[in-house]
């Protein structure tokens, strides 16, 4: 979708040409929630551009708006004002159903609590996004799942049910699932929040490998400042605004 015309909720014709936009392009995002105490602005006129191959850490205190920001990028939530263009698609205009399918093809999500489906084996969990989005030939899907599991050193556990493996292993499997449809973007919400420090290090190393070797773009929400300081770019969010956007050169060095 490179050019289009459409009426927005207010009836105004809006149009855009996104062929020149960044991989992730947030333009003037406001997000307001209705609360009993009145409207609460979780994001305020926020602009953000992320280019392919970047590894971005999003940090901030509880309630700062970092999860809301991630939800905008994944299409899980919609802005009150502004535009969200991801991989040249204005995703804030997609219906829920279309959004789910688009997300399945273009974005991998890693959750804090792994969220593997307990009735499917590890390999089946990884094949599921391929099924949903009809990606890869059916007879290739298992081999791809095992290949992805080998990337996260989990191929031995392919045929086990999730509750038969440890939390760290479940998170590795969740990362493999996020890669199932080979999406350009991985979004991880506190991926190490539920892991011990050794396992957290291993998971982080895996993300670095994905950026450096697989050319993925990763956005990671974290509370862990040490981890945040190891990435290329660190966004600090406070009161719904980007407080700082730092390029951490030392990592590159």
């Amino acid at each position, binding site marked *: 979708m490179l050019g289009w015309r459409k009426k927005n909720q207010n009836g105004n014709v809006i149009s855009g040409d996104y062929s020149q936009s960044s991989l992730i392009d947030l333009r003037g995002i406001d997000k307001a929630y209705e609360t009993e105490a009145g409207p609460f602005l979780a994001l305020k006129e926020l602009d953000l551009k992320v280019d392919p191959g970047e590894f971005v850490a999003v940090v901030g205190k509880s309630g700062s708006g970092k999860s809301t920001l991630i939800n905008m990028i994944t299409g899980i939530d919609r802005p009150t004002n502004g535009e969200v263009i991801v991989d040249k698609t204005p995703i804030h205009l997609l219906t829920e159903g279309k959004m789910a399918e688009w997300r399945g093809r273009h974005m991998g*999500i890693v959750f804090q609590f792994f969220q593997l489906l307990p009735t499917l084996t590890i390999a089946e969990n990884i094949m599921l996004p391929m099924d*949903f989005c009809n990606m890869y030939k059916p007879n290739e899907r298992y081999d791809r799942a095992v290949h992805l599991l080998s990337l996260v050193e989990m191929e031995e556990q392919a045929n086990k049910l999730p509750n038969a493996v440890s939390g760290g292993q479940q998170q590795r499997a969740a990362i493999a699932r996020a890669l199932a449809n080979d999406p350009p973007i991985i979004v991880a919400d506190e991926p190490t929040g539920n892991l011990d420090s050794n396992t957290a290090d291993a998971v982080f190393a895996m993300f670095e490998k994905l950026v450096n070797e697989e050319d993925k773009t990763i956005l990671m929400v974290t509370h862990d400042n040490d981890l945040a300081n190891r990435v290329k770019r660190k966004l600090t969010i406070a009161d719904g605004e980007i407080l700082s956007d730092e390029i951490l050169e030392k990592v590159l060095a």
Partner: protein
Amino acid sequence: MRWKKVFRDLTSNLSRTILVVVSIAVGVIAIGMVLGSQAIVERDLPRDFQAIGPADAFAITFTNFDDDIVRRIEAMPEVEKAEGRRIISVPFKVDPNGDDWRNLQLSAADNFETMELNKVALEEEMAVPPKDGTWPPPEGTIVIERSALSPNLGFAGVELGDSITVKAPNGKERRLQIVGTAHELNQFPPQLAQTAYAYVSFETMELLSEPQEYNQLLFTVSEDFWAQYEFLNLSSEDRTELAAEISRVGELVQKEMEAAGATVLFVFAFPPGQLPTQTILDGISYLLIAMGVLSLLLSIFLIINTLSAILTQQVRQIGIMKAIGARTPQLTWMYFGLVLIFGMIALVISIPLGVVLAGGLSQLFATILNFNVRGFAFNWNVALVQAAISLIVPILAAIVPIVRGTRTTVREAISEQGVGKGQFGTSYVDLFVVGLKAIIPMMKRPAQISLRNTFRRKGRLVLTLVSLSLASLIFMSILSIQASMQQTLTESLGIFSFDVQTRFSRPYRIDRIVRQAELNPYVTSAESWGFAGARRIRPDDTQSGNIITYAPPADAETLNAIILKGRWLKSDDTNAIVVTNDFLRAEEDLTEDNILGQRITLNISGDELEFVVVGLARGAQPVAVAYVSLDYFERVTDQVGVAQFVAIKVDRDRLSQGPQTFSEQIQALTDPDSVVSTAPTIDELASQLETSYRDAGFRVEETQTIDLVNSILTLIYNIPIYFLLAMAALLGVVGGLGLMGTMSINVIERLREIGVMRAIGASDLSVLGIILLEGVVIGFISWGIGAILSWPLSIWLTRLAGTLLFSSAPTYIFSRAGVVLWLFIVIFLAIISSFLPARNASKVTVREVLSYE
């Protein structure tokens, strides 16, 4: 404040509250409906029945009798009251130019207004009644029994003031004007008997060339007789015994009548206080009680299921409340309070709904059994039972989940995170389900999720399956029973290898009877049988009930008896007799094992004759039947060369089958000239035969086709079948509700998983499909369980029903059509039940889902 939380819990999730309330209400409404309708029937039916002055017995005579004999019987010390009636069966048609003859039973009494036994009450008259009044019906007019005035008994489009054509026993036709409707409670329902009832005066009987004399005597036994007994709560066995006592008085009445010159065909005694339709009523009552208890039991499962799920969802909140100081007893009472409120809401809904449905159900009874219902009834006893059930049962059902839930520690309660509620993967069942992937490699991942999710909450699955499987089991069993009964009935009626039977009111020469029948070009053969009512004189000198005794000719073509034991009659037999298994039922001293070779004494028309039993045959109708050799019968009854019964075989291939397909039926209705076939249908042929007998001067009592006998018996046997099917339908609804509850709870529990699936690319349709398929899998399992269990159950029930109805093991057929039909029904039911939860699941957004807890 904590009660505020309870009320918020009620209102914050309205659909959940509705689900619990409906779960409780289903059983409570069913109980209210069943008990309420029984209370109405018990209130109205006995009162109606006592009001008609029911006769204790009646005698049917061969010969006519007058008031002198009635007074003579009434003077007997054993008799309280006696009245005479004249009852004749005649054909009638509505269209004077048409040929659609139907059955009508005409009753005449001295005065319908002053009669005291089996009273008939005028129900409705014309806007402008005849100048002599409507009741008793003036000469040339007729009053029809109200429930008979229906299209399927031949009264289509007939209104008061219209006339019908009646063919008198001598063959002459008369137009009689319908001037009113009447109500006679003491008749077998016309719809079941396939005969309409009507009332005329003796003047009208004379118009039909009938004498102003009686052929039926009704009587009640004296107060002195009843004084010997103390009436408490009579069981049906007590009533049967009392009927036997009344029969003894009946024998005395018979002797007295015969001494006065009347020939009595038989005397029927009724169990006191028992309607002609009592057996049907009792059967339906038992079924309804069973239905009520069953739906209550299933509703208990439903309640346990729903409450357990709700409390599971509350575990986290319980943990939080404990963390801020709540003690376990406080929480326990809070949740019992919540359950009590659910029960109270259900009660408030169930009482009025139960009353309305009880009114509807009793009205259905009233229509079938032809009595009056005097409106809805609020019954305190029924309401108390409903209150007890709706308040106590949910509390009992909630004990385990509440105690388990409130005992959860704070740490356990707040540590629940992420997906994965409902253990899966540890049991053998789970491993088997996972292993199915190897057996069905084509099964896609979403289908695998559906299948495996089915087995995650095994307790919940079992509770859901109980009601659905029961519905499946009962439905499929019933259809097998029905198929078996129909087959047995067809086989039983197969012993009559003729198509039309005619009974005459007096004996005629056999060669005349046969010749007259064979004049009709469609008749292939006709055989006259001897026919008489008989009673067995038992070793203790008591007499049995009426036994229909046929004497077919040797090597009869029209009879094809199924011999269960011993042999059929031979041409050189003298006093040999073959009895049916229905005969054995009433004779305690005779069994299938000892019957052969027994010497039994029968009272036939006043003569006591001894017979030797040579065979046991399968009965066709639920009445005692015996067969004796015609030569011997003619000799002993002094009726050589004459008979009162003819069995006629016709060439069915040459008969018109009538419009068969739906389009043919429509065409026949809209354009009667389009029917080119000039051949009569079997009913038209029967009517032609009867007319030809009457025209030739025969006095015809009744002409029936075997098809009609078959359809009457099928209808009677089908009444309990229909109620059982209604029971299966109710169970299906309860099962469907249970499934809907289970699926809703499953969806609520798995919202997070659904959210994850949405996050990794599942479309609305995928999510909808996964949930629907899970519901269908549950429906399919219940179908499998039901189908397997229905085989032994239907064999057992068919035997039981067969023993009751046919006095022998019937032919068993497993209804494959029933199994296939229920598969479609249950899958449809599963889709309907799961659709709402599935749709809800497919509509939630990922953000809502992932923030859900």
